[in-house]
């Protein structure tokens, strides 16, 4: 068989040492491609990921819509609340990328394939970056579907398409940041199941003690402060601003007054911190 003739010849063509950040990007894209193929072949995960936010839109708009009064409005108006709500739902949806990334990485870490990856001359962070990039694609897809549903229930963009695209950019950045939190969770826990629940459970207080569903001015003062400084709230507020949606009474806290800048800063800080911790953890698992 050709194995025999090959071995001698191909040793010479053994991989040229390539290095630097470019090799890292390339390896990450190769791994991202692998994860995207998996998503296509296991579409259940993506489909459930789509159903959940749609459910939230419908539940919140129609169940709470008539009851919650957005401050600054004369009365509780379901149409106003629906527009107020969408920034919150969009932002909450992108944070759910955490669970997907966590479960995916936890799953990988317990399979033989990770030994293959670790024994290859590839960039060390590429397994993780590839996963988070694939999750970013999924998040983008979810946002598109969600925006269509939102348009159907009456949500509108009032400040032009460019601002709206800016808002979606912030949402993707936030989702990417949260998938790095998921990566760290996935590397820390023992099973994919634990990563899923560990990736979700803290999202509930995080997204509810925020301005996403109820204006922070309506919370007890202590919670209101937390909500104002919640990284998640900054993106929600920025989306409302950029979409031209009702904002309620906005607090004087710095992130609420400069939501776009605050949103970018928070996301970048989360990415830097959690990427560093995750890659370090992956490496220590390696070496």
């Amino acid at each position, binding site marked *: 068989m050709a*194995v*025999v003739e090959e*071995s001698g*010849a191909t040793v010479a063509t053994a991989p040229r040492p390539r290095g630097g950040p470019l090799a890292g990007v390339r390896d990450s894209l*190769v791994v991202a491609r692998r994860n995207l193929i998996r998503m296509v072949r296991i579409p259940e995960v993506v489909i459930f990921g789509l159903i959940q936010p749609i459910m939230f839109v419908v539940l919140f708009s129609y169940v709470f819509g008539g009851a919650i009064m957005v401050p600054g409005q004369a009365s509780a108006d379901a149409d106003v609340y629906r527009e107020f709500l969408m920034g919150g739902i969009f932002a909450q949806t992108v944070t759910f990328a955490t669970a997907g990334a966590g479960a995916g990485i936890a799953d990988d870490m317990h399979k033989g394939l990770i030994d293959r*990856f670790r024994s290859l001359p590839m960039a060390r962070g590429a397994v993780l970056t590839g996963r988070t990039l694939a999750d970013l694609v999924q998040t983008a897809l979810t946002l598109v579907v969600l925006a269509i549903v939102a348009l159907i229930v009456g949500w509108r963009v009032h400040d032009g398409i460019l601002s709206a695209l800016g808002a979606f950019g912030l949402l993707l950045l936030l989702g990417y940041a949260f998938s790095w939190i998921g990566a760290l969770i996935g590397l820390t826990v023992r099973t994919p199941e634990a990563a899923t629940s560990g990736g979700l459970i803290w999202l509930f207080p995080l997204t509810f003690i925020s301005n996403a569903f109820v204006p922070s001015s309506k919370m007890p003062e202590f919670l209101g402060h937390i909500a104002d400084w919640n990284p998640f709230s900054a993106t929600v507020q920025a989306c409302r601003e950029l979409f031209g949606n009702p904002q309620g009474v906005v607090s004087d806290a710095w992130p609420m007054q400069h939501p776009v800048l605050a949103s970018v800063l928070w996301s970048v800080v989360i990415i830097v911190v959690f990427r560093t911790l995750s890659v370090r953890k992956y490496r220590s698992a390696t070496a």
Partner: protein
Amino acid sequence: MPGAIHAEGLVKTFGDVRALDGVDLDVPEGTVLGLLGPNGAGKTTAVRVLTTLLRPDSGTAVVAGVDVLKNPNEVRRSIGLSGQFAAVDEYLTGRENLRMVGQLYQMGAREAKSRADELLEQFHLADAADRTAKTYSGGMRRRLDLAAALVVSPPVMFMDEPTTGLDPRNRQALWEVIQELVAGGTTLLLTTQYLEEADHLAHDICVIDRGKVIARGTADQLKARIGGERVEVVVHEREHIAVTEQVLRVLGKGETTVQEHTRKVTVPVVGGAKLLAEVIRELDTRGVEIDDIGLRRPTLDDVFISLTGHGAEDGDAENGVKSAARKGGK
């Protein structure tokens, strides 16, 4: 020595378990070392250390001329790893798996593609190339895994129990592949708990137990250590055991051993077939009815039992140590 493996004083502990307790290994370029041991002996840990997956507590290792601890990524360019758990993505097709591995070995996209096609052909996976690996049989997955390890035709290969769990036909086929590989000059470290496999494939054998190397040499050298041929007689009647033992004591060279419940009497001999004929004649004159008789040469199983006091299949620490290995690696 671009293709050699050399390790000295490897120690790795997981909690209370000393998975490696001062292991030295030497595999000259182009040869095959069979790392032989029962479950939990430390074979997998040794492979994980040498393939940069696990950092030892102490010791040094050089693979393909590169220090494993100082320069792991450089080592990774020259090695291929094939394990007992086929390390392929089951949701990717065979072709996609091999292309991905090629690209991660830093091949260009086109090169990775043509190399994948080549390997699929060589490993008789061309027909299944576009099916996901999930649909593959155990033997096919193992072949795909081995193909993935050979994408760059690395000068040094590690195979961790490559045939565990395979049926005899697939095992035979994999042996042939391995032999061709070695004929092409690849250095190979192979772990196995099948003594027959080590006997068949390895130039040198290293017997490892509880993290320590307890014997090394060629298969013949190891067999010679526990003595040469012996005659084994199974008699039909239990009362004939005594007289048979008497005959064998006279004709044989050494202690006889008797296994009452199987009615088997054994004695070391010199003189081979000629002596066997003599034993048969002698027993015949005394009216001993023989169920079975034979001249036996020691197997590596015998070597194993005499070295470790237990058989290769014994021991239940494997799973414990393996999960500890993974945990410890975290």
